[in-house]
């Protein structure tokens, strides 16, 4: 039976590993989640984020390390003994049970008294705003409604931890935004500790209190959305956070955490995010928003414009340098393809990284 753990302070992953061929492997994942936190596991597909979630849920056995709820070790328990709530990617609603029965399933398995079960299901239905839909079968619901049932089913058992596996990936763009707000609202109302797996950095940035970026089964960075967005620790994290221009060059000067990098003869300055010495190979990472069409050649690259797409308030352009580097930039005015311009990097938001391992 589910362990009674409504009063807990933290969930701790201690060097959790999972060997599985070479794919989906996890290596020494350490993570502490405080009660009430909303954590997003972010990374490209195959990075191990779903594996981590399934290990926490007990659907996959860990091959090393341990998982703790305060002083209780849970990785040795069967999934049904952990009492966590989980929202699946394709919802996994029981097709033969109606909405109420789906939501009440976990309570029924716990042997909850009928009256109390009915009351809790009613509460959950109103929390996800599905009053009056209780007697429909999942097949009769829209994608968004199915999503709401899946969430209600996971939270009605009042789990210490709610796990969500890319819950919005099956919805269209508009519904996704709507459900994102819903998930945030429900989290704010209940304060349930949540681990949310996604490959969409917008989702992670807008929902999470803290984001865990995974790559190849390794935790690359843990931080608040603001920390990750402004100060990614590695080049691959920066890539995920929208630094689309990654220019390879050589460090020619360093000073108080800043570095000047020679990129095809142009000198670009930026904030050093990893320790670098003069002469080392480095990458300069710049968001398209921080590349401006400019007159002067200072902190700038000479490029030929390839395309300029009109996007309403601004233009998004692509360009290439003499040496063949491709760049993406934004511009407030039209630029003709084929013209030679200078693209200046804003100094504050330009970051310098070491070569990725």
């Amino acid at each position, binding site marked *: *039976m*589910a362990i009674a753990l409504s009063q807990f302070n933290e969930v701790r992953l201690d060097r959790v590993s999972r060997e599985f061929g070479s794919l989906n492997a996890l290596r020494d994942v350490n993570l502490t989640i405080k009660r009430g936190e909303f954590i997003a596991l972010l990374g490209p597909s195959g990075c191990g984020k779903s594996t981590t979630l399934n290990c926490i*849920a*007990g*659907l996959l056995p860990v091959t090393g390390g341990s998982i703790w709820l305060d002083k209780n070790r849970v990785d040795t328990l*069967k*999934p*049904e003994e*952990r*009492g*966590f*709530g*989980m929202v*699946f*990617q*394709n*919802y*996994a*609603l*029981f*097709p*033969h049970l109606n909405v109420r029965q789906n939501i009440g*399933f*976990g309570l*029924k*398995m*716990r042997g909850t008294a009928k009256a109390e079960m009915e009351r809790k299901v009613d509460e959950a239905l109103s929390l996800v705003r599905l009053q009056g839909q209780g007697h429909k*079968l*999942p*097949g009769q*619901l829209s*994608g968004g409604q*199915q999503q709401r049932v899946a969430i209600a*089913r*996971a939270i009605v*058992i009042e789990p210490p931890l709610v*796990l969500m596996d890319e819950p919005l990936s*099956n919805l269209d763009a508009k519904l996704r935004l709507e459900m994102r707000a819903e998930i945030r609202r429900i989290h704010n109302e209940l304060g349930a500790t949540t681990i949310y797996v996604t490959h969409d950095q917008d989702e992670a940035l807008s929902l999470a209190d803290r984001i865990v970026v995974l790559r190849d089964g390794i935790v690359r960075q843990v931080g608040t959305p603001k920390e990750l967005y402004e100060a990614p620790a590695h080049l691959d994290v920066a890539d995920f956070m929208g630094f689309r221009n990654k220019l390879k060059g050589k460090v020619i000067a360093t000073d108080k955490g800043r570095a000047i990098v020679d990129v095809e003869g142009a000198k670009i300055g930026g904030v050093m995010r990893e320790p670098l010495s003069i002469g080392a190979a480095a990458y300069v990472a710049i968001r398209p928003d921080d590349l401006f069409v400019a007159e002067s050649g200072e902190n700038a690259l000479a490029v030929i414009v390839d395309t300029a797409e009109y996007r309403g308030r601004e233009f998004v352009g692509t360009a290439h340098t003499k040496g063949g580097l491709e760049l993406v930039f934004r511009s407030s005015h039209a630029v003709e393809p084929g013209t030679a311009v200078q693209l200046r990097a804003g100094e504050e938001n330009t970051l310098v990284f070491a070569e990725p391992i």
Partner: protein
Amino acid sequence: MHAPAAMSASGPSLRQRLAARGFDAVTLLVLPAAIFSLLLFVYPFAFGLILSFEPKSGDWLANYQRFFSDSYLYDTIYKTLALAIPVTLLNLVFAVPVAFRVRLMRRQRLLTTILVLPITLGTVLVAEGLLNYLGPQGWFNRTLLTFGLISQPLRLVHNYWGVFVSLVITGFPFTFLLTLSYVTGIDPALEQAGATLGASAWQRFRHIYLPLLMPGFAITFCLSFVQAFSVFPSAVLLGEPAGLTRVISIAAYQAAFEEYDYSMASAVAMIMGFVQLAIVVAVLASRGLFYRGPASGAKG
């Protein structure tokens, strides 16, 4: 095909009107097979039904009256049911846990290939093999004697058990492969969802798999039962065709090919078909009590 020219003057041609309902040249491709099926399946059945009411002697119901008044004939129904129902239930009861286990296997193919052997080889070969294998000098009895489990060879052929075993050998793989295809058709995420909601292995089977599988089990039961009920070669070769395993198909065969009374043979075949139909309808009607939609995680 010459009509359209004449019809084109007055509104849409016949061809256009037929095409609008789905009849065009492509649809006509179904005709050869349909005519074939009518000639060689529907017509013989109808012919047999009518023939069964035209007995060699007596009034139109004489064949049926004879069948249901002669215990040598009507007993064949019980004898067939006494074989078919236990065998089908046994096969299904064994097939379900095995299918659930095999579902977890990564390399199922070797096992499914071995199991498909007896189906492919057919009942005649299985009967021939079992005659030797289960015989008093066969390896089966020898093994039991060697291990001291029995002191006398068991009599396993030329009786009820010989036919029973042959029906298990050909029927179990059939039942199992059908069951496996239903079991693997269920989204594993449903079981995972059940587990995270606190359902134990037994509860997951009871509350998730079983309700979703009931319709499939019902169909599996029907198909396996119908196969077992029509047992013929093994009942002759492995059983006592004049005694305990005189099944209904033997009665039909003897009427046709030993008494040359095709009218009576047709009547027996109709009764055989009717009993099969009655059991199938009863089982499928109870299927209405269960959920019958897609067995995946709702959204397709």
